């Protein structure tokens, strides 16, 4: 080789890095050891401390009354989230509209509902009858079609849906608006140049691309909503938390029943997390050169470079 024939000053020794020894990380070993000890202590505590009353946890974990609480919690999460998403889309479109009055109104809504703690809003809706004893539907300032006492209309469930849903709409509006703004305006122009209507452009071109930016924060919102539903126990709605509270108020098995609630909340959020991963994968189509292929790859954030590099070819 040319190199070895040169003078020794220029000579580069032959090296093969294939068998290189790994760098040692003694601190990592220490840290791992400490974590293992802590984990062992935790397990020891869980097993030996009788106050956990695991038999009680086991007994209540799939009790029917807990099941009803879970159903209420899930119902509330789904309905309030649906109100939030629909309201959020309308508010986001309103805030991006060319109509100044509409833009401002939607901005004021977001400002108002984001500015007041949701717990306060819940209590407020629950006590609406103190402000408006009667509600009616009809022509504004004109004849009434339906009317009734507010107390009959605003049941605890309805107050909860209003409180959580209207608040959620304000947050979803900001998330959706951010997603819509993240889509290249060139996309709308291209769609318009093809003669697509505004509605079709929104539905087929802008929204699917905005979803990539909307889904991840919305996933957090759903999980937040699931947990926020526990606030409704203050207005005596029998959700998961209210149910376990009402049981341990009688039996004084506070810790095991709270553990039952924790386990169920964790279980449900885990299922939601997996669901979110599926949805994200769906809207990642075409977003990068190497769109995620397998579900588990996606879940573990591993991206395989499977697609062959494109070769530009010249037309004849």
């Amino acid at each position, binding site marked *: 080789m040319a190199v070895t024939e040169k003078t020794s000053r220029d000579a580069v020794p032959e090296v093969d890095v294939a068998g290189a020894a790994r760098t040692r990380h003694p601190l990592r070993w220490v840290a791992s050891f400490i974590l293992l000890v802590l984990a062992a202590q935790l397990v020891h505590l869980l097993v030996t401390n009788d106050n956990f009353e695991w038999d009680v946890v086991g007994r209540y974990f799939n009790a029917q009354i807990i099941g009803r609480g879970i159903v209420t919690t899930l119902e509330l999460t789904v309905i309030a989230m649906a109100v939030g998403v629909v309201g959020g889309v309308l508010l986001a479109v309103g805030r991006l509209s060319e109509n100044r009055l509409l833009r401002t109104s939607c901005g004021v809504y977001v400002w108002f509902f984001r500015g007041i703690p949701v717990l306060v809003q819940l209590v407020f809706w629950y006590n609406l009858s103190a402000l408006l004893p009667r509600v009616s539907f009809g022509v504004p300032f004109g004849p009434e079609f339906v009317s009734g006492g507010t107390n009959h209309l605003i049941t605890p469930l309805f107050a909860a849906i209003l409180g959580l849903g209207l608040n959620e709409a304000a947050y979803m509006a900001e998330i959706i608006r951010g997603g819509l703004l993240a889509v*290249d305006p*060139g*996309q709308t*122009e*291209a*769609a*318009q*140049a*093809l*003669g*697509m*209507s*505004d509605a*079709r452009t929104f539905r*087929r*071109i802008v929204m*699917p*691309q905005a979803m990539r930016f909307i889904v991840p924060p919305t996933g957090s919102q759903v999980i937040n909503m699931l947990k926020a539903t526990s606030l409704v126990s203050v207005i005596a709605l029998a959700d998961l938390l209210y149910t376990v509270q009402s049981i341990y108020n009688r039996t004084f098995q506070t810790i095991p029943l709270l553990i039952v609630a924790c386990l169920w909340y964790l279980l449900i959020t885990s299922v939601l997390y997996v669901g979110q991963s599926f949805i994200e994968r769906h*809207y990642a*189509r*075409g*977003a*990068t*050169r190497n*769109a995620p292929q397998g579900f588990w790859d996606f879940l573990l954030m591993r991206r395989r470079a499977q*697609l062959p590099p*494109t070769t*530009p*070819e*010249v*037309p*004849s």
Partner: protein
Amino acid sequence: MTAVPLTDAPPMVRARNVRKRFGHLEVLKGIDLDVAVGEVVVVLGPSGSGKSTFLRCINHLETIDGGSIHVDGELIGFRAQEGRVRHLRKREITRQRREIGMVFQQFNLFPHLTVLQNVLEAPTGVRREPRGPARERALELLAKVGLEEKSASYPRQLSGGQQQRVAIARALAMRPKLMLFDEPTSALDPELVGEVLATMKGLAEEGLTMVVVTHEIGFAREVADRVVFMDAGVVVESGSPASVLDDPSNPRTQAFLSRVL
């Protein structure tokens, strides 16, 4: 390169005294331009002279402030009736745009749709063409731009030149009477420019009416029926490629050409 018809048939594009301003900035100061059916007009001009704005006025992506633009005899963006002029409704503007294809500098393909879906979106979704025949024609168009085998790819998996050829196929799928190209090769690596220009030359030879904004002087010389030079919002010079490119009479055209040639 079809012969420009000498009859007095109505032109495909008839722009008269077109004016457009953005705030205080007057971008178009009275553009007059006729494009005959089957003609290929190349628009040259320095950056910021209003070429893109004029092109975008033709399909009403921008609303003009004065003058008029007719495409195939139809007033674009407005309705004139009994001496009164009104803005058209969105639906009607949308309908007018279907007859006019546009190709952008940045391609603007829909990244969440495959190449085939990009081409199919407008014919099936807007024109409501039945899926089977529309699909066949989309594949034909992709074959025509040399990308039949890429129909299942997503745009971001293609090179710039391939993306721009898909964009051309997408515009052609609406069977436009007129095609507008806004610097279609300016975002491309030099070695990819040729494939796009070759595709455009093919369309010109088939007799498609085209208005092309480009800095590719070679393309203008070879393909254009007429070259128009714009500067500071006005048409400074217009004529055959030979007369404008080789023997410009206006000093601004001369200065521009000496820079780009």
